């Protein structure tokens, strides 16, 4: 009787231990997180985002596990980029991301991204977006901004988005 009880308890304990080991070994983090550079895991890649700061741009390094699909990586970078922007731009959402055969990237933002702002603010938001994407993805040829799925002439009434984004930013 005693032997049987000891055997049953042992089996239960072994089963619980195995379950715990299996559970923790298969669990993965579901969202990318900022990771300090010195603690970066081998599998993560570093990316640079540019953020407008009064009269210039400041850069920030971010780390996340690179996806094989480039558009997924752009999407992740845009998430980090938007969070760093001042209100109301930080509340903007990316509704869609497309790439055409000439490597032009179409980013469909929510309406908040076209909020009123001064000339300088508009210029530096566009410039920071351009540099963030161009420096991380050299294959990008040009960028087109859509608001709520539609092409717009300008974000805030100062800079036309109908000509090439590349031309506007590289001349400026």
């Amino acid at each position, binding site marked *: 009787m005693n032997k049987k009880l000891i055997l049953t308890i042992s089996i239960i304990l072994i089963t619980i231990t195995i379950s715990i080991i299996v559970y923790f070994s298969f669990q993965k983090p579901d969202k990318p997180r900022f990771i300090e550079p010195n603690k970066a895991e081998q599998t993560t890649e570093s990316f640079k985002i540019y953020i407008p700061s009064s009269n210039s741009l400041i850069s920030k390094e971010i780390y996340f596990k690179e996806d094989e699909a480039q558009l997924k990586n752009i999407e992740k970078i845009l998430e980090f980029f938007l969070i760093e922007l001042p209100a109301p731009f930080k509340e903007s959402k990316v509704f869609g991301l497309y790439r055409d055969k000439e490597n032009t990237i179409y980013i469909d933002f929510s309406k908040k991204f076209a909020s*009123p*702002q*001064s*000339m*300088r*603010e508009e*210029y530096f938001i566009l410039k920071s977006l351009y540099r963030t994407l161009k420096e991380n993805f050299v294959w990008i040829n040009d960028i087109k901004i859509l608001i709520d799925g539609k092409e717009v*002439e*300008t974000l*805030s*009434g*100062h*800079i*036309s988005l*109908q000509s090439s984004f590349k031309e*506007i930013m590289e*001349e*400026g």
Partner: protein
Amino acid sequence: MIKKTICLIFFVLSTTVYAQDDVLKVTFRVGKHQNFYRFVFICERPEIIHSINVNLLNNGKIKLTFPESFEIEFEGRLLSMQDRIKDLKTVRQNLNTFIIETSKIQQIKVLKYEDPLRLVIDAYFEEQPAEEKVKMVSILIDPGHGGKDTGIQFKDKNEKDIVLYIAKELASKLTQKGIITVLTRASDEEVSLRERIKIENRLKPLLFLSIHLSSAESFIIYTSPAKKNISKEKLSKILLNENKAIKIFINKLKESFPEPLYQEKLPATVLKESSVPALMIEIPKRALIFDKDYLNKITDVFVQTIEQNLKQKARSDKANNE
């Protein structure tokens, strides 16, 4: 039969050559003096010179009617039916008439001289002093935003309304001074950046001034770091005039307002695609509270600045012409 045909062809050709040689040739010379042009017509046949009819038309043009068809030679070339000589335009309505178009002629004196036989017309125009020439120029004022594009907002006030108010006041005050002023929009309507550029390219004003509000308590004067589709020669002139305008704006705004003033080069579309000197001025955001005294002070300073800029330009144009 063959002989007859050859003779006929020869006869026709020889009469044509004869006819060509027979066309009356008149030599034309032009000289511009301080307040008159001197037009000289030289012809070897005295009866022609004596029978040329000269009329000053109501629109200030001079019409010459010759007794027969003629050709006009100017500096070794024959003038076409419509031609240009310096700042003059010449038109042949038919083979017997010759019209000279220039700045409005007020009075003419017609004289005939001999040796060589010539008809001299002194056409007087009113010489405008440099100050009055300001009246000939135009300013294109561009109130930013409009329609759905409100610009910066503060409570129930919108940038589009404030800049429209300033632009209208400015246009009215400049017009009173005799300066021709045009607005890219005169009501709360949506005018695209492309349309604003089209207006500017069509009117070719002496100065394009785009008015916006700053999101800070400062004045900011923008010019474009580059211009689109402008030749190098024209670009240097435009940049020179832009710099002159900026200097005057900076001086006037600094002496009239306590707010800080910045100057920056950024590629705003209306500046970058402008083919004339173009500035964008952002006004401190306190303008959004719609303090009329403050807004009127701004327009008064702008009027003084534009007036000074145009006078300076007229003087330098005059000096260049001399």
